[in-house]
């Protein structure tokens, strides 16, 4: 590899095996976002295909969380367009709510509903948004809680669970809506080290089952194992896009090389 400096635009990666990927599901074109004077998202172009697992990495303040939150409009954007399954993101109201129901979101701080039991956390969306009966919603919730390994905690309140358990409940709560795509905004950053793997295992399982996922994370091991594609962001821009193999072994940009040298040296 004799590339120097930032990657030239015409330097394409050799095509990876993407036969399992479907049509474009999440499309961002020319997305701009400002926090005051700070240009946090700069002309972002990104397409995620059905079944794809995209991992977004980058130094803090690079705009990766903002990018993730913009996709279900928890952050509004100042320019450009975001489409999900061909539909542009609605600005407000019922249509936006309907779209969000199809986009799962897992937060860094779990954000389980603190006044509801684990079971009620998982059934709230299906019952109130999808109109499922209580018994149908609970039946499925138990299956999902079983799948993420916290079925025996169903009657407890979130504060009684460990961080890793709470985050797995949060994943079950998202899955209960049968989302087309799931967004993970640093899902393991608030966890104690011994709990990180129990959450990553669930996420890897989801990836294997073909869920479309956009994952903002610092977990390079997860990126290597589960990602179809890695996007490296810095200063509000997408600096590099590559397969995990390519990105971790042959990063092209100085920013990426610098970032990787800092996190992979120990």
């Amino acid at each position, binding site marked *: 590899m004799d590339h120097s400096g930032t990657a030239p635009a015409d330097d394409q990666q050799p095509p990876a095996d993407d036969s399992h990927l479907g049509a474009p599901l999440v499309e961002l074109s020319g997305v701009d976002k400002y926090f005051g004077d700070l240009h946090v998202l700069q002309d972002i172009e990104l397409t995620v295909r059905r079944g794809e697992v995209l991992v977004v990495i980058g130094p803090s303040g690079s705009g990766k969380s903002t990018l993730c939150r913009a996709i279900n409009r928890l952050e509004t954007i100042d320019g450009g367009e975001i489409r999900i399954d061909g539909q542009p993101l609605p600005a407000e109201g019922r249509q936006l*709510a309907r779209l969000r129901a199809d986009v799962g*979101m897992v937060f860094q*701080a779990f954000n389980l509903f603190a006044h509801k039991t684990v079971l009620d956390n998982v059934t709230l969306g299906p019952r*109130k948004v999808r109109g499922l009966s209580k018994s149908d919603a609970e039946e499925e919730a138990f299956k999902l809680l079983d799948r993420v390994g916290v079925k025996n905690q169903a009657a407890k309140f*979130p504060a009684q669970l460990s961080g890793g358990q709470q985050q797995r409940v949060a994943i079950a*709560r998202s899955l209960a809506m049968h989302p087309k795509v799931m967004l993970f905004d640093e899902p393991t950053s608030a966890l104690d080290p011994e709990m990180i793997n129990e959450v990553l295992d669930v996420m890897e399982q989801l990836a294997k089952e073909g869920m479309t996922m956009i994952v903002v994370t610092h977990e390079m091991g997860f990126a290597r194992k589960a990602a179809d594609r890695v996007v490296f962001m810095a200063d509000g821009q997408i600096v590099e896009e590559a397969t995990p193999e390519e990105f971790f072994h042959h990063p092209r940009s100085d920013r990426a090389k610098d970032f990787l040298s800092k996190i992979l040296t120990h």
Partner: protein
Amino acid sequence: MEEYLDIIRQYDVLGAFWVNIQLAFWAAVLSLIMGSVLALFRISPIGSLQWAGTTYVTILRNTPLTIIMVFMVLGAWGQLELTLATDFNLNFFWLAVVGLSIYHAAFVCEAIRSGVNTVPVGQAEAARSIGLSFLPSARLVILPQAFRGAIAPLGNVLIALIKNTTVAAAASVATETSSVMRTMIEFRPDYIYAIFFTFAIGYVILVTPVGLLSTSFSRRLAVSR
């Protein structure tokens, strides 16, 4: 001691307190409903509703209660002929309830809003992310937690309300405590200390449990995070 028994025998002190309790009860119910709606306005994403809520609170919270009560009788009833009951005295009672409610609704709104501030923003984001729009996420996620975080400040509003029911005298409710006390002092000036302490202690007995209960409930019902 003889003095106290004397005045209680001669005047309907308990009945007077009962009038204030009824005023407080109905005004508490009404102001809780109005205050919740105002709080919804103020936290809603719709600018004109926010403006309406803020304007209401700013005006009513900064208007003296006596002014509102006098307006209810001389303005709303006397001039605008707002009648809430066919019975003459009952009409004044309900005018006083409405006056107390529109005033205290502003404080209830602010108490609930302080409760909303105890709910982390992530709760609202999680509610939105599963597809709940503003009203359902307020009703199912935000307000249940906000009320539990607002019990102590709501208790304070209720304490103020109970004592402020005596301003109903300004709305011509002649059977409530301060009106009865005025009559008693007029006719039995020899008993002024006994009369004063009867009412003072009566209110202490009435209000103290409210403070104790709201403290205990706010602790027991606190949302653990």
